């Protein structure tokens, strides 16, 4: 991290990008390992068959997306308070990575729903709120490209980021608050996880690897933002 107010150097940005790339590669290898464990060493669920194994990528992608969007909100609150540009860059980076994980969540979910529910999509509370959250952060990223003044851009997008964060608990609790087709949480709930150990182990491993990938991609994207700032300041 650079000191507050000091311009980032291109060398510093390159070092951050290198660290992010290394972490992302380790995480991607870990996810390849998760694929092997899920497909070859995790039992087939009796009622849903092989389609249930989609759960081992859908749930960790959802976790990473909600983590990313929550951190956008926290960084945005801190930005409005401290006005440190690093917090704005962190929020922008986390939003972009969160949108990528949301794309995984929103495509693997319907692929699971078709054989299990008999339909690709239904407008129930969980699915609809998740889609709105995705659109909100696509809007957040569009807003950032539309506003050229960096202070205005940071302030406007911080407000949108906080709105997005406020949606996250509704997404998680929607299965309790509304009548919904979506399965209820089986790990993040008040009682103990209701999943056989072999399945829980695969899920936790996958959550760990997806979280590592989030951190790796976030670091890369943050480094690219530092490089863009260094370029702007050099050309100014």
């Amino acid at each position, binding site marked *: 991290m650079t000191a507050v107010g000091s311009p980032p150097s*291109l060398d510093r*940005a*390159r070092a951050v*990008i290198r660290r*992010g*790339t290394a972490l*992302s590669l380790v995480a*991607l290898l870990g*996810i390849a390992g998760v*694929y092997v464990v899920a*497909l070859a060493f995790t039992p*087939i*669920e*009796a*009622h*849903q*068959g*092989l*389609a249930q*194994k*989609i759960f081992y*990528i*859908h749930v960790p*992608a959802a976790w990473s997306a909600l983590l990313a969007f929550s951190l956008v909100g926290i960084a945005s609150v801190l930005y409005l308070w401290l006005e440190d540009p690093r917090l704005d860059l962190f929020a922008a980076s986390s939003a972009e*990575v969160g949108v*990528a994980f949301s*794309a*995984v969540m929103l*495509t*693997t979910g319907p*692929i*699971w729903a*078709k*054989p299990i529910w008999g339909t690709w999509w239904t407008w129930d509370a969980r699915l609809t709120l998740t889609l709105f959250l995705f659109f909100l952060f696509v809007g957040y990223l569009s807003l950032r490209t539309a506003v050229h003044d960096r202070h205005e851009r940071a302030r406007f997008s911080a407000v949108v980021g906080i709105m997005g964060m406020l949606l996250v608990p509704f997404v998680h609790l929607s299965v309790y608050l509304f009548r919904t087709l979506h399965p209820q949480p089986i790990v993040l709930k008040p009682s103990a996880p209701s999943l056989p150990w072999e399945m829980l182990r695969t899920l936790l491993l996958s959550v760990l690897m997806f979280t590592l*990938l989030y951190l790796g*991609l976030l670091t*890369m*994207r943050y*480094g*690219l933002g530092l*490089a863009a700032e260094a*370029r702007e300041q050099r050309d100014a």
Partner: protein
Amino acid sequence: MPEPPVNGAYMIAAYVVAAVILLSYFGSLVRRAGKVRSEK
């Protein structure tokens, strides 16, 4: 115990789609990083 339903194609499709999205995004960051690396 009932036989589990045969729906492996959906599982494969989901795993492939997830890999394509994540690798595409990683690839786009690597391309952007390449430009930063070659900058003077």
